């Protein structure tokens, strides 16, 4: 049994994560039925993530899949999409990613390849006693002083779905913990930042 995490950002600024956890279980894939008894007799290059017979886009690179299948025979493959597996460490660890500390890895190994630039200590302190939230990590330009940031905090505090806010002046980030029920919206956050006179340059959403 094993797995391979894989994440893809589907649109700018939004951490739409899909992890394909490939397990050697049931759920046979249709192409396997058509083509092979031994699936390693051919390369999957160019077709695996384009032409699945169920019409879905599998979003697994052919190279990754080939490497995964190397030396495997007589297996079926289940491909599982998982939300909330935001970093490599979490992928190895989790049912609940906050059972562990993010120390030393949070800003290094986001699986979307971006650098979150929030210190692990800060993130852990922020998450302390929070449950059932998603976190928006907002990159803000022009947030050069405490006074500027205070307006941002006050603006977001008016939103009843906001559970907690933290400002990281060093890295120009605002952490906003939203209730799970909130559909975190890029343009809504961008407008609120702009209403305070700063500009948003990026948004990452950690589904926790």
């Amino acid at each position: 049994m094993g797995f391979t995490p894989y994440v893809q950002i589907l649109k700018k600024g939004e951490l739409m994560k899909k992890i394909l956890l490939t397990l050697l279980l049931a759920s046979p894939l249709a192409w396997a039925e058509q083509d092979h008894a031994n699936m390693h007799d051919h390369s999957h290059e160019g077709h695996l993530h384009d032409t699945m017979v169920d019409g879905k886009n599998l979003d697994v690179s052919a190279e990754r899949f080939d490497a995964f299948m190397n030396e495997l025979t007589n297996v079926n493959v289940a491909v599982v999409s998982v939300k909330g597996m935001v970093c490599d460490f979490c992928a190895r660890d989790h049912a609940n990613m906050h059972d562990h500390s993010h120390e030393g890895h949070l800003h290094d190994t986001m699986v979307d390849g971006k650098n979150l630039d929030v210190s692990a200590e800060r993130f852990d302190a922020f998450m302390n006693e929070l449950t059932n939230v998603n976190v928006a990590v907002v990159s803000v330009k022009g947030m050069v002083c405490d006074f500027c940031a205070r307006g941002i905090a006050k603006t977001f505090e008016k939103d009843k779905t906001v559970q907690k806010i933290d400002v990281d002046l060093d890295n120009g980030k605002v952490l906003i913990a939203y209730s799970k029920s909130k559909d975190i919206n890029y343009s809504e956050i961008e407008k609120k930042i702009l209403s305070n006179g700063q500009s948003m340059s990026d948004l990452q959403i950690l589904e926790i």
Partner: protein
Amino acid sequence: MGIYKIIILVFLMVFNADARPISYSGGTTIMYKSDTFNDSIYLHYSPTYKYSIGLERAKNKFYKSTENYFRFTYLVNRKNTDISQRNLYFQSGVLVDDADGFFYGMHGDWETRRWFSGFGYKDTKNTFGQDYTDQYIQLGVAPYVGDYGDLHTWIMIKTKKNSLTNTQSTYPELKFFKGSTLVKFGYSDKTEWDLHLMYRF
């Protein structure tokens, strides 16, 4: 009233550059300033991030008069980067009880978390005496870079000139702010104390 006010009005209507709040949108600020020329208390409100409106009551120490102004400040331009912010403001005020008395001017600043620079120019049309101008330039450095919620400190140097008193002075200032409160004071043997208190809510 006259050509100046029309120019100011046109100026305000024409400018539509990207700007930011004087305070944040919906924010109210109260400030007290005292220097060799004026003691004033000023309350302003920012309906949007682009401008503020307010009332100022100033005691003019030179003329020994009290002046009440309607004030309007507009952020003409702002440039945000990852590490800095640059602002250019237009400021104006008109006497509540005599529209022939008014002032207008520009002030601007550029700052990072460590460095600050600013300038200001104000032209006052006086109804009970000579017209005059105020100008200043200011430079500052933060001796340490504080985190959100910390006490923040700036060491600054300011040079200012007033055409009515014909004085120019250069003096050090200290600025502290924490949360929504700001305190700034400086001292010069020519102009004595320069005090500025501000609270934003």
